[in-house]
């Protein structure tokens, strides 16, 4: 059916709208016949909720999976990963192998986390094992660093619970649900500053899993020098890398916004630490992302009308181990600097090229296998179909920590730009 794609959005950001307009798409309202809807997470909740009985037709595509929160809510993400690990352990998979102290060798990429108030007693037990540790409290449903604080004494939690007017810890109140995670107090520092990684990952389908990694991720640096000293625990500028927080610091710079391209990180690490450990780190980062997606794939509603672009937050510690902090369903499309605007514009552009082939009216029954040329700045992170087609012998050979030869975009086998060679 010929005709222009009709789009709707309830996120009024220029990086989106400019991309729609440059494709010659036509803006409509959500009450009319639309083909493409870039929704906020509130809207997707309504669209797929049982009450509304909304049915999407074959020529309609949306930018979220119905139950994306299985991955993007901090507590559910941890729950799903724990479940995934237990399942692998039960089936005797070598991926679930543990070391002498009982830690998973390959699947230990989320810091110890407990749900509060549900797991409070479990948390206290763990806290008492290492009383000098610091923990970070995060509200499950908020973003941009809101409501986050650090504690290093049990009394601080009790104080918080009193302050937030909940009568006791025993009342289940999902609205105020928090997670508490072991704080990584030995982050890798560059130039004396703490940073985290923001990586964009596009998922076009969960079963079979097909996901793409955006090559132009970036590091978000704190403006103040890092110190694990207890006197600075309250200083959010030292610890939280969210731009929303850092923007209000004295030293915030509007030209680069504290953002450093991932390629710079790679160059720096290779130059100062060597090629093998750098390659290993980036392999592990890819591994962590793919495992997190595999963990939620079984419970994800793999609706064929959906695709999703996630913002992954990862912290690297000083032993060059990556930790998955959280996954964002709605990564910020606000541009903090000119470079940022260009980056996000290109991100949306490449995303649309993959999700809506040829910019034409979509047919959600298509096989979701775009040709290599449209990937733009995306690289195939994992393609379950391709991986399975290559035979089962790949499973055992490839795992993080084992050398696999040149990787990371320079794959030589049959010219595919696939970042992973494991299933």
């Amino acid at each position, binding site marked *: 059916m010929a005709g222009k794609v009709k789009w709707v959005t309830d996120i009024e950001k220029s990086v989106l709208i400019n991309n729609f307009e440059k494709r010659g798409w036509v803006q409509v309202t959500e009450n009319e016949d639309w083909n493409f809807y870039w929704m906020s997470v509130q809207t997707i909740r309504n669209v797929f909720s049982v009450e509304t009985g909304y049915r999407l037709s074959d020529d309609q595509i949306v930018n979220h999976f119905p139950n994306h929160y299985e991955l993007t809510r901090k507590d559910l993400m941890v729950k799903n990963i724990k479940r995934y690990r237990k399942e692998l352990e039960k089936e005797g998979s070598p991926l679930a192998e543990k070391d002498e102290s009982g830690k998973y060798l390959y699947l230990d990429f989320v810091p110890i986390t407990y749900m509060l108030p549900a797991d409070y007693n479990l948390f206290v037990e763990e806290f008492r094992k290492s009383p000098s540790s610091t923990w970070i409290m995060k509200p499950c449903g908020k973003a941009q660093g809101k409501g986050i604080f650090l504690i290093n004494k049990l009394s601080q939690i009790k104080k918080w619970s009193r302050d937030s007017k909940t009568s006791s810890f025993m009342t289940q109140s999902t609205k105020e649900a928090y997670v508490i995670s072991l704080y990584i107090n030995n982050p890798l520092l560059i*130039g004396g500053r703490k940073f985290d990684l923001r990586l964009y990952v596009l998922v076009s389908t969960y079963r079979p899993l097909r996901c793409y990694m955006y090559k132009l991720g970036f590091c978000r640096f704190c403006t103040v020098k890092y110190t694990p000293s207890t006197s600075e625990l309250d200083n959010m500028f030292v610890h939280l890398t969210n731009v929303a927080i850092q923007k209000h610091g004295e030293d915030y710079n509007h*030209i680069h916004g*504290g953002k450093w391209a991932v390629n*710079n990180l790679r*160059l720096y690490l*290779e130059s100062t630490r060597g090629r093998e450990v750098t390659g290993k780190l980036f392999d592990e980062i890819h591994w962590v992302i793919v495992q997190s997606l595999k963990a939620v794939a079984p419970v994800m509603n793999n609706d064929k009308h959906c695709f999703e672009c996630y913002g992954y937050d990862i912290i690297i510690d000083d032993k060059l181990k990556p930790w998955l902090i959280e996954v964002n369903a709605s990564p910020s499309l606000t541009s903090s600097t000119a470079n940022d605007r260009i980056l996000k514009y290109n991100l949306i552009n490449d995303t649309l090229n993959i999700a809506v082939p040829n910019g034409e009216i979509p047919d959600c029954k298509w096989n979701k296998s775009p040709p290599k040329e449209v990937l733009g700045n995306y690289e195939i992170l994992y393609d379950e179909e391709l991986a399975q087609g290559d035979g089962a012998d790949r499973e055992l050979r490839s795992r993080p920590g084992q050398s696999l030869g040149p990787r990371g975009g320079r794959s030589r086998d049959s010219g595919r730009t696939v970042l992973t060679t494991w299933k």
Partner: protein
Amino acid sequence: MLQEESDLALIIAQIVQKLKGSNLYAQLERQAWASLQRPEIKLESLKEDIKEFFKISGWEKKLQNAVYSELSVFPLPSHPAAPPEHLKEPLVYMRKAQVLINLRNPNYENGDSHSFRTHLGLIQVPLKVKDIPELKEFFVELGLTAGQLGVDDSTQVPPELFENEHVRIGQKVLSEQDSAAAQQYIRQGSPTALRAELWALILNISSQPEDILYYEQLKTNVIQHDLLVDSLIYKDVKLTASNDDYYFVFEDYLYQVLLCFSRDTSVLGHFAYSSASPPKSYIRGKLGLEEYAVFYPPNGVIPFHGFSMYVAPLCFLYHEPSKLYQIFREMYVRFFFRLHSISSHPSGIVSLCLLFETLLQTYLPQLFYHLREIGAQPLRISFKWMVRAFSGYLATDQLLLLWDRILGYNSLEILAVLAAAVFAFRAVNLMEVTSLAAAEAVLADLSTLKVMPLLQIFLFATVT
């Protein structure tokens, strides 16, 4: 023959004299004494045995590297009766130029060289610069038949063709710890993982405890008293590196290194072979009295806008501050000082400017003429690139590949060649501009350029 021998003897004597005051000498002495305990050292053949021991244990190599290091800044042979100012800068009018605004040779009123009378550029000084045939010979390792990092390591090229072997050779060079071999090797570029060590080897930097202690002392000096130039450094960093997408992360390291650098009197040593002299200040009330003169700042170098950009790229290679400091200091006293002092040295900024203009005028005369006509003298645009050795203009990985070659050829001439190559690359667009501002705009963003292909095309593939 006899003259050459006595010249050589003189050079050897001078270098020995220089090295006698160094740490290496003390270490060699200690090693020699310690070796007397070894069974293979016999009293009858003491000298030969110790020499053999030095050879096997790698100390001879260290001595070799030190000699090589001295030779790289050794002044050219000169008349024995020449006064020290002449050694610093042989040409009279260049010496006088330190205080002149206009640089002209007073003996050169009616130029006898045809090409020079019609020189259209800004530099009207007849210094000797290489032409393309000479450059092709000088930079022979950059030729099209040899492998290069920056060209032959791109993702489309299988690593078996060049890169793997090159890395293997690099590792071998490092294990041999041979400065001269490293310098030769790096002409084809350095693998990212080996670069930090290779540069340290070529610059003959090894982090001894004494070096770290020296750096700590400098840091103490910084804490104990302020200098006025500190304000210049703060301002420079805030204006340049702090706003740079690549280098803002290393702001604190830049302060550390530069504040220590200003207080480091060992830097004064380079004025022996620089045409410049350190500024002097007099104790209050004693103006003009030499006994009350001090060098100010203590290292004799007044920082200027953009100075911190010499240090910034090095932060990608060295995360340990004292090593970073040593490398920067050596890079400065070997190369960077030539970019901001007036001299007739082939790597001096004046020669580089002239080389750039000559290359452009000879091989792209139409472009040069056009730009001149619209009031956009090419040097006005390229000067800032060369003064900063392209730092802050190129992407960091490309810049490091360029600086590999500076070290490899022990010369800054490649900066002028690259500047000309950039103009050649953008020639089509430049021919269409009609103002200096428009020309600047065409050349504003060099961050996507790949330097090695540009250099290769300009030197070896352009029809001359």
